């Protein structure tokens, strides 16, 4: 789907603070690993994700490279780009690629270009969606309904950052580093734990139940639908301001300090929650750092950790059938315990 400039503006979204923050932080630090938005129907999950494209800065890319390789990063270039030093550089809007559920494996991974092969007898690789999404975002709506064999492919590529195609006599390897953004309604099917773990942050999205917010949402939606151009124009300044703040945060990111006592705190939280593997811990460190940069601070505070812990960890907990509480509630509970213990010590 095209991500037109006429998309509903990000700043015009009413409420949904957690979701907006998560998206902003992922735009700030792409290595955070993306957002998973789970929740009710009609809460504007898709709207928020689609609005993301307008917030991203332009990328420097090698001109005419189908994988838009980064000219500055030799380690993540395709064979052609790595083979030469003199690149013509061009700017490109960061790709936000939609993955429709009906996608076939050949379009996801890329395959032999049938037309060229049949007509000219040339064996040429036709890049798929993973190539398109390199260095950008891959958005899957209804991610919980994605076919198993496609999930396998995604997990494989997401883990390595490379897409290796060995089929129909082709042997192609190209960089495919992308941020996964997913949304879905958990009532329509569960997500595989391996895929869950791939998302940096998760957010539970709920329909606002407060009448004032609900009225405001409908009013804005109505205004947008009646005259999208005027509506986008009205919010343009605010959107640009936000986009600038994100750029500033991105510049600040590398100078943000994470003190040892913060690392210690994060480790304690993860141990108390029993999250599997180190990914949770690493993500929480990155998320807290991005949050500090977003606030314009140069060192991570305890409050950054507190804010980001539920989003970075709640989807990594082992499900406990005897504990009815939602996992974000469990994270909050453990956080309280950890802090109480610290205060006592």
């Amino acid at each position: 789907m095209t991500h037109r400039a006429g998309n509903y503006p990000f700043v015009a979204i009413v409420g949904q603070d957690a979701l907006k923050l998560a998206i902003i932080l992922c735009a700030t630090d792409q290595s955070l690993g993306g957002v998973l938005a789970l929740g009710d129907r009609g809460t504007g999950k898709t709207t928020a994700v689609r609005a993301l494209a307008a917030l991203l800065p332009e990328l420097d890319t090698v001109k005419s490279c189908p994988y838009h390789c980064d000219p500055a990063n030799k380690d993540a270039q395709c064979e052609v780009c790595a083979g030469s030093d003199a690149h013509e550089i061009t700017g490109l809007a960061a790709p936000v690629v939609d993955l429709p559920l009906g996608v076939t494996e050949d379009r996801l991974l890329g395959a032999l270009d049938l037309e060229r092969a049949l007509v000219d007898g040339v064996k040429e690789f036709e890049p798929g969606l993973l190539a398109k999404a390199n260095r950008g975002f891959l958005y899957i709506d209804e991610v919980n309904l994605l076919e198993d064999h496609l999930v396998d492919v995604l997990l494989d590529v997401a883990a390595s950052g490379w897409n290796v195609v060995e089929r129909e006599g082709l042997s192609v390897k190209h960089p495919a580093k992308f941020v996964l953004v997913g949304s879905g309604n958990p009532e329509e099917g569960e997500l595989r734990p391996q895929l869950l773990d791939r998302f940096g942050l998760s957010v539970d999205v709920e329909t606002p139940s407060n009448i004032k917010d609900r009225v405001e949402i409908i009013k804005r939606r109505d205004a947008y639908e009646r005259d999208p151009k005027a509506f986008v124009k009205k919010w343009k300044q605010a959107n640009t301001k936000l986009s600038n703040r994100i750029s500033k945060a991105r510049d600040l990111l590398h100078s943000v300090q994470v003190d040892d006592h913060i690392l210690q705190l994060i480790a304690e939280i993860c141990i108390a929650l029993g999250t599997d593997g180190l990914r949770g811990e690493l993500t929480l460190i990155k998320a807290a750092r991005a949050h500090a940069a977003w606030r314009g601070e140069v060192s991570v505070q305890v409050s950054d950790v507190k804010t980001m812990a539920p989003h970075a960890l709640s989807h990594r907990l082992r499900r406990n059938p005897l504990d009815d509480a939602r996992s974000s509630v469990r994270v909050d509970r453990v956080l309280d315990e950890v802090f109480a213990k610290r205060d006592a010590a």
Partner: protein
Amino acid sequence: MEPTNIEGRDSSPQIETANVWQDALLAIRLMAASLHSKIEPPLGVCVKSTAGPVLERWLTCLENALGSEADMIRVPSHVGIDRLIGGIDLSATLAAGKRIAESGLLSMAHGNALLVTQPQTLEADMLSSLISAMDHQEVMVERDGISEQFPSRFCPVVVHDPDEEMPAALSDRLAIHIDLTHVDIRQIEQSADFTCNGLEQVRQTTPTKAETITSIVELAAAFGIHSLRPPQQALCVARLNAEMHGPDDLVEEDILVALRLALLPRATQFPADDEDALPDEQEKQSQDALDEETDNQEAQENDIGELEDLSIEAILASLPEGLLDTLNQHKNANARSAAVGRTGKSKANFKRGRPISSVRGRPTANKRLDILATLRASAPWQKIRKTNVSREQADGPLIRSNDFHVRRFKKPAESTTIFIVDASGSTAINRLGEAKGAVELVLSESYARRDYVAMIAMKGREAEIILPSTRSLVLAKRTLTGLTGGGGTPLADGLRKALALAHEEQRKGRTPSLVVLTDGSANIDLDGNPGREQAQIDALKMAQHVAFSGLAVVIIDVSKLVGRQAKEIAAACHSHYVAMPFANATSISEAVNDLQVSGAGA
């Protein structure tokens, strides 16, 4: 809560047929008007109706209303994803020597109405493609080497049978909901001359007062409609209705129309019976404190809302009487369709399952040729092969047998465990609690196995499917929380409904097994009448049907003193029998696991 539901179902509402029919026709006008206007997305209609003359007449009216400019594109229930969203046109591609895309039904529907019957049979990916096209007025094709976007702005018309589930994600996106089930064909006028006029003046430019938006949002909240799409659609309906009648501002009448067509049919509660809703809330309290809080918030906000110009009371007072009677019915329907109707369709046995990548091999009866993969395999060799053949033969691609690729399907190892729980009498609460626990345990333990669970409660005069087959722990928990026990034991009806459900699951390609928690003492017969003797005879009869079906069954005897009745039923079912006077969630879930192991071996 449950007993009133059953009564509500029995007494058919005495609404004026003519009014319902008029509303159904109004729905057509509104829909056609939205198709002509710039509204995004155009309005959709959800029709609850059985197949029959009333539906036929309504569809004829719809086609008349669309006139010569638009068509009604039908989505057959057996449609495949390639036909729905489009893909490669193989014959044209081969003839032309270059890739030619074939448009699917969704892009053919652009500018037209799209008719979907039996939405419950749509596969998850097709449903999702349909919904995505509705949301974005565009189809994205990323299939078989085709990467294209087609415009797809259409009015969806979804007809669903009252007995079938309506997929909630689809229902949420359809603005207008009409119910033709109780319309009498003899009482509606001939439809041949039905046309739509005045569509040209619809511009959707009528300015909307802030109060109008506020009252529509408040109305939606008062009727317990949580999603934000319905109030938005209601606003659209009201404005369209106003513009169809002339350049006047939106008036109360228009809001009433929106209320009748877009909001009331989806109501889950009624503002006047807040007291009735209370017992439910109390049960939920322990479960979900958070939800409770938001509910309270909502209630408080409602109070403030009543001070607005267009008060909810005034609007309710002006509603026709019959409408409110139907609300109880809608309540039932909504409670059930809250379950997501995402279901598979029946497939031929040898080709069942999810397609996975193709492999080289000869096509046989069980292995279908994958033409595209075959072509791909042959493509690199065309030049070499063509040098060795005559000019005539070189026309078109040359395929050798070792190019053949066949489709592979992953056989789903999916199973459905259907719990049939005796929820009668005084011991029900305990038993029910354990059964709920077992359902959740099975679900949470079985993720890797992809198991589904369903639950039927036997209580009162008939058994009821309280949890349609689902894999979602979230949904199961939510549904089971509200379940209470009491009343008689309609064991025969429980088994009958379980059999029907099991057959439905088999059609979807899953392997069902039954877990019956009962003490075996039936006291309600198949007709819903009390009486131990007949009830027991009926129960044994149904048990024999179960035995004949060859399903894996386990009867868990939960009576305090192990009795002979449950054993008799188990013998009649040819089932496993487990005495479990102190059944608990863990032991039940173990019994289920044993059953599945033995079922798989058999």
